[in-house]
């Protein structure tokens, strides 16, 4: 379980200082300063917060904040140092869940509880966006949210092949319900019965990034209690970050021995990203031809099931006529990092600029990505006539709905 920062001293010491994290850290690659790479961050946290041999200065706080929690360093670490967990725990130790200002904290609280931006905050955001006062790259919201349209059980078309629960995160629910609707249609079209559970809240990953463990636990408990009792074959999500939270992080956020923790472990085994799930059980509805080219921006919160990284390409390979054009370094981060782009605007844009160049050089018209954060942050830098969508949207188009 993610607990006190002191517990991480031994794990931090495991770092071999090989420096291979320099190859993957988007912040380091933009800054080209070793102080901002995982190897040094872990050392600095170890010396200031665990061993207390150095004072916690403003600079230390900046180093700990200047991280996207993209987890690329953790994923690539040979010595298995859980770098992102150490940074999250350091944020918890430094801020106790109050890293952001009061306004942002309130905004996030509303978002966590309502699974996205709804009600008054939604109206405020829409007006701000109309007046061009909202931050660039921030997603727009829809007043008719996904959970107002879909709840309960939806029967499949044709013979029932499986039954899944669909977890919609905050983004799909309030900012991009169309993706949610696409998922519902594609699943039904492929003989899958879908349960859309009610009273779910945010998966918890934004609060986790803040180091706000108490809020994370509240979210996890609420969702686990709902999801773990469902009689379904799988729990699918369109969002790779929600999925990683449910499958990998959720069980770690609760103490061992907690009855809910055991339930979280059982629930986690059923969680799949939707394209990965569709590949596993196979699609039965034949896609029609689509004369189009696409490239794939791989979300940072990837690889939490073995088949996931190749899943969208494998699924879309079923569509006749659709051409895949790989971009350079498809796993390179886009710079959004949840709310990171609001705190470090220039740095995030610098990271995004490189991604935009790679997308342009691919020569594809459509970009696919399963992360709603990437989709909204990359939208403003796409070329004329280009669009960025969830892979499921592409599949649905081939079904000519």
């Amino acid at each position, binding site marked *: 379980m993610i607990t006190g920062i002191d517990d991480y001293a031994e794990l931090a010491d*495991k770092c071999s*200082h090989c420096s291979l994290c*320099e190859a993957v850290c988007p912040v380091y690659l933009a800054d080209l300063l*070793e102080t901002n790479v995982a190897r040094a961050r872990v050392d600095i946290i170890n010396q200031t917060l665990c061993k207390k041999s150095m004072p916690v*200065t403003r600079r*230390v706080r900046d180093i700990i904040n200047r991280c996207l929690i993209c987890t690329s360093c953790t994923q690539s670490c*040979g*010595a298995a140092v859980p770098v992102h967990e150490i940074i999250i725990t350091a944020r918890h130790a430094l801020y106790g869940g109050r890293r952001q200002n009061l306004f942002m904290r309130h905004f996030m609280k509303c978002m966590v509880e309502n699974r996205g931006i709804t009600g008054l905050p939604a109206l405020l955001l829409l007006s701000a966006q109309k007046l061009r006062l909202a931050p660039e790259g921030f997603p727009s919201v829809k007043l008719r949210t996904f959970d107002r349209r879909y709840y309960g059980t939806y029967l499949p078309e044709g013979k029932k092949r499986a039954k899944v629960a669909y977890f919609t995160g905050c983004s799909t629910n309030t900012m991009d319900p169309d993706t949610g609707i696409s998922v519902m249609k594609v699943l039904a079209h492929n003989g899958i019965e879908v349960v859309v559970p009610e009273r779910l809240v945010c998966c918890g990953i934004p609060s986790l990034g803040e180091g706000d463990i108490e809020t994370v636990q509240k979210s996890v408990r609420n969702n686990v209690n709902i999801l773990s009792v469902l009689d379904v074959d799988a729990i699918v999500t369109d969002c790779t970050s929600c999925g990683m939270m449910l499958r990998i992080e959720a069980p770690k956020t609760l103490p061992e021995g907690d009855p809910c923790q055991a339930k979280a472990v059982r629930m986690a085994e059923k969680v799949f990203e939707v394209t990965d799930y569709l590949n596993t059980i196979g699609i039965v509805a034949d896609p029609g031809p689509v004369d189009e080219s696409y490239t794939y921006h791989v979300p940072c919160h990837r690889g939490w099931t073995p088949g996931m990284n190749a899943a969208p390409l494998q699924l879309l390979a079923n569509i006749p006529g659709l051409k895949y054009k790989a971009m350079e370094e498809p796993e390179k981060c886009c710079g959004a990092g949840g709310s990171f782009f609001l705190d470090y605007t220039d740095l995030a844009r610098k990271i995004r600029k490189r991604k935009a160049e790679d997308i342009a050089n691919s020569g594809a018209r459509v970009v696919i990505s399963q992360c709603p954060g990437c989709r909204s942050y990359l939208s403003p830098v796409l070329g004329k006539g280009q669009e960025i969508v969830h892979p499921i949207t592409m599949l649905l188009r081939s079904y000519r709905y």
Partner: protein
Amino acid sequence: MKSKYQHSNALSKDLISLLGKEKVKAEPEDLLAYSSDATRYFAQGMPDAVILPTEISDISKVLKYATAYEIPVTPRGAGSGLSGGATPIKGGIVLDMKRMNHILDINKGNMTARVESGVVLANFHRAVERQRLFYPPDPQSMDVCTLGGNVACRAGGPHCVKYGTTPNYVLGLEAVLPDGSVINTGGISIKQSTGYNITQLLTGSEGTLAVITKINLRLIPLPAARKTAIIVCDSPQLASELVSRIIYDGTVPAVLEYVSASAIMLMNSFNPIPVTMDGKAYLFIELDGSPAVILEDSEEIKRTCLEMKAREVKIFEDPEQAALIWKTRRKYSPLLLRVMKRAVLEDISVPRDKFPEMVKAVEEIGASLGIPTSISGHAGDGNVHPAVLYPEVTPEMEKKAEEAVRLIIRKGLDLGGTISGEHGIGLHKSQFMEMEFGQEQIALLKRIKYAFDPGGIMNPGKIWPETGA
């Protein structure tokens, strides 16, 4: 004047006035970040300031200043070295070269390239391969390490069995001497026979003579195809005998790596390696060339191996699968830390025919001292990387490990080998230099050093141990 660098505030103020604020970092957090390379367990030293130059004049200014005030200067690439060479043990200034990262020219006609020394090796590989050219050196840290660091330490890598190490490709250098003057050595001509070979003297000088700022490199045509194979053997002896035999029979693989049973199991836990895990030793092979040659070579190797009673020869047709195998191989040394508390990576290079004896000796040394070892190595060129492993870090373990390293090095020298094949000497092996070089040669090294760096500011304390006088 002399003690100016001991007042780090005064130092960074001076440096800021020389270079501007953006290029000078001197907060405690920065100093910690730059206090070691990949041998942190062995040594750490806090610098007084970190400089991030972007042009050659920055370096000239810093070196002139450092010479005037006798401030140590440690040039640094990625800080991924395995010798402690970039560890600023005397404090002073660290010169982080990674912002000088432009590939200035790739000349297809002459098959050469000119780069700034902070270019990351893997980026350079990609750039030249896009033009169907090939730069073979490939140290396992190639995703991060810089060409400047590679030249300074004579980096090697798996492909060097067929293609040779970094020095074989260095044609010329631009470097800043400690007095701030700039020299251009060698050139871009493939053949050179002009005076002392300063290019090759700076190559391998580990930042003790000058700061390398630009490099001219020779390139070769990119092989049309590649194929990966793994040979499973029932004994380490058989695996190492096969190494000599395969090459003697006329096939020089592009890569010929020895992987011990414990090493492959560790790699397998990170990414599945699709071969049986109950072999006693493995050879990882890459063949390159035209598809017809590869086919012929792979059949020849298969025949030889099976004739000599290798258990299995598995050839991987899928390039993605092959790429994953090599990527996992590159993670081997940090992977050791998943099961051990510490890993000391050695770098002995012996004549190829002595490879079996060296492998056997390492195992015996480990067993007799009761300390775990794990062997991997670029067997094709006789370069052994024995890892001395600590299940726990205790003073007793440290003593045993020290003894193991000493015995391994002694054995390597007795077999006619050298104490470093591709990592360099740095701090980690300086105490063994005299065993190999002898007093007279060390004295000569010191005179050469004095000719370049009379003030002794360049990366002090490296290559040979400092003695009282």
